[in-house]
């Protein structure tokens, strides 16, 4: 082993170097015993040489290009070295042996001679591994959100006893009333003549067969144009909707649509599905700045895709129901026209993938085509009943 005794490393950039009197603290990675080793370099062979009587044959050779320094270290007064090891399973591809240098000259020497000191080694196939894992995780989450949870919700929803669902629906309607009424207690319209007209419309639509549910329709005294179905046959219309409707047939169309939701138990199924996906999404996407927004957007997109499907089915159900009751679907179609105008007045259009209802124009068109093909129809309410319904909130 060549061991040129030069004064200091500065005088021998390209020559072999021995650091006289300088030691490094060496742990062989097998035992806890520390060896204070002497150091020299052999530039021709490209090695750092560790000397100690207790080492096998008194020396250990460290190839300069295999030497790595530990990263993100707190102490500036020491440099901890190790060797690259592509087979290491519990560390960043390094061996278990450690050599700590505190002598500034020794540190400077190693920093100058070891070409890959701060190299980040990456195992072959790492990229493929990441893609495989990432793909697997995404596939599992997608499968859960779009197949398993909705399927389970569909299976479970019919198992809930109807009286429970009805009680739940009533709570939801009460809460909605409190929320929309801004604390006002009496939001429910109760004009007897109006309620009678509403009952008549309902009977005409549901016919003699009726539904699995007892339908209970509530009208809220608010200007907002809206209608929704709560669980257990609870349906809410607003004064704004009745006022905006061109005729009783239009209201009947909306009502038939909501009855469609009731018949399909959409709200209950949706509640179960959302309960399943919410916790899952917040775990998969949460836990970083902006995570809550990401969860919200993802939830909205998933919801809208399910709602659009449900809305389309409820529309089809409504048209069928109108037809069986002998009511023209033209009123339903006209009502979409009015909604479309309101939307265009807002000055922008919500993109299809973020909206819960299918685009209004298409729905109006579908209802108009259906109405054209209908046979003999009659008005759903007499003129006097229609004016009674319009006065339900008076």
């Amino acid at each position, binding site marked *: 082993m060549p061991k040129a005794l030069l004064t200091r490393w500065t005088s021998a950039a390209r020559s072999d170097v021995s650091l006289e009197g300088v030691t490094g603290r060496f742990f062989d990675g097998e035992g806890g015993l520390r060896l204070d080793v002497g150091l020299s370099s052999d530039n021709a062979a490209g090695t750092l040489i560790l000397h100690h009587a207790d080492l096998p044959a008194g020396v250990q050779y460290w190839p300069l290009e295999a030497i790595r320094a530990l990263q993100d270290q707190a102490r500036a007064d020491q440099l901890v070295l190790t060797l690259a090891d592509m087979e290491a399973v519990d560390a960043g591809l390094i061996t278990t042996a450690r050599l700590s240098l505190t002598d500034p000259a020794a540190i400077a020497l190693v920093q100058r001679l070891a070409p890959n000191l701060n190299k980040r080694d990456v195992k072959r196939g790492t990229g493929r591994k990441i893609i495989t894992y990432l793909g697997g995780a995404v596939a599992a989450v997608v499968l859960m959100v779009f197949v398993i949870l909705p399927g389970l919700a569909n299976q479970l929803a019919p198992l809930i006893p109807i009286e429970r669902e009805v*009680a*739940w629906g009533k709570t939801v309607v009460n809460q909605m009333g409190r929320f929309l009424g801004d604390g006002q207690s009496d939001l429910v319209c109760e004009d007897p003549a109006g309620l009678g007209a509403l009952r008549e419309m309902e009977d005409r639509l549901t016919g003699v067969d009726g539904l699995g549910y007892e339908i209970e329709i509530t009208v809220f005294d608010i200007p907002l144009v809206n209608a929704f179905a709560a669980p257990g046959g609870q349906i809410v219309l607003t004064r704004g909707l009745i006022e905006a409707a061109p005729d009783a047939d239009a209201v009947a169309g909306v009502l038939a649509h909501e009855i469609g939701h009731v018949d399909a138990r959409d709200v209950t199924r949706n509640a179960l599905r959302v309960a399943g996906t919410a916790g899952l999404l917040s775990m998969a996407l949460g836990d970083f700045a902006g995570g809550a927004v990401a969860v919200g957007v993802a939830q909205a997109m998933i919801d809208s895709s399910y709602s659009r499907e449900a809305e389309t089915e409820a529309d089809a159900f409504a048209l069928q129901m109108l037809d069986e009751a002998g009511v023209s679907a033209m009123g339903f179609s006209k009502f979409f026209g009015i909604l479309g105008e309101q939307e265009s007045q807002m000055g922008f259009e919500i993109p299809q993938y973020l909206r819960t209802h299918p685009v209004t124009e298409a729905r109006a068109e579908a209802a108009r085509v259906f109405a054209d093909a209908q046979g003999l129809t009659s008005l759903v309410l007499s003129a006097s009943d229609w004016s009674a319904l319009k006065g339900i909130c008076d």
Partner: protein
Amino acid sequence: MCRQGYSSSHLSGRYFGQSGPLFWLYIRTSLLTLVTLGIYRFWAKTRIRKYIWSATAGGEDSFEYTGTGLEKFLGFLVAIVILAIFLGLLNILLVFAGLNVMGAFDGTGSELAQIAVIYANLLALLPLMLFAAYRARRYKLARTRWRGLRFGMDNGAWGYVLRALGYYLLVVLSLGILTPLATFRLEKYMIDRTWYGDARMAQDGKWTALYGGMKHLAIALVILVGGGAAAIMMEAETLGAIAFFVGYIWFLVGAIYYRVYAFNYMMRNRVLDGVVTFDAQAETGRVITIFIIGMLALIGASIAGAIVLAIIGSIFGAAIVSPQVISNPELLLTNTGGLIVAGILLGVFYIGFILALGGVNLVMITQKVIAHVVNSVTVANAPHLDQIQQRAADTGADAEGFADALDIGGAI
């Protein structure tokens, strides 16, 4: 050159970390986490740990953290899949049960029932969180080295879950009186499964000894209950408020006192390989001082941040909302460029501000407490450490993925 054993039989813990470098490391890694939509957080945590571990030394030799961000990321992906299935099914079944069995949502009791569902959810997650806590500790030990030798921990997460649930139940049923039993036995369970190289750690001592650490909690309770009762009897609201305030503060201090006391006691009764013993002299007063100074720093930083935010806001506010705009509000919409610049500036400042607070917290509180605790530990019979041999590598399995997915474990 000779074999270099320890001349002294004692070895002191020393902490070399500094505020500046760790603060900037935190800011740099947090920014990377932000721009990678959170994916870098596994690497960020790993780098912070590397810093803190390497700042910790036993005698002359530094500790080392050998975990990698990549394995944490992959472990997280695995955990996500398992938890996604479990959580999705659990939540849907809980709501179903809530609607079906418990009579939830019916009229008056509905809010109560909803709360019950939320708690049932948490309760169902508790075993998983305990499982994750044990696995996280095992992973951290498996990735810790000192003098080139690995630490390690035996597999035993489910045993820990069962015991922890049992002891927590006892604590709740005894109104907290059995807290020392839970603290001692659960820590003993983990310590008795801990290894350094081929040397096993053992926890001696008695759980009843921890009652000494409960004294300030007991005093706080006396103040709260006694003061409250006296206030009610004498109908003195001020007295009640004072008793509540003093009792509350005393309780917080008492909780820190208990943790420090328990740490010292457990450390002093720990033996490695039947030979090497430990001592710890952590001080409650010092820890509380660190907390108070850290809190003041955080408050100061918040005030400074709010002032800068207000200045930016007012400058842009003045520029955008000129007199013409006030008379004609539609002009506001025409000045979109100004609005966008102001928005971006405020957003950037806000993010920087939040990151800075996190950094101050890490540097002023977390690191200072670690420094104090490390410096308080000494090891006796250290020469025996020379004879300890390496242990086999632990692949780490989920690499803490469950803890990351369930968001437990805090800053480091």
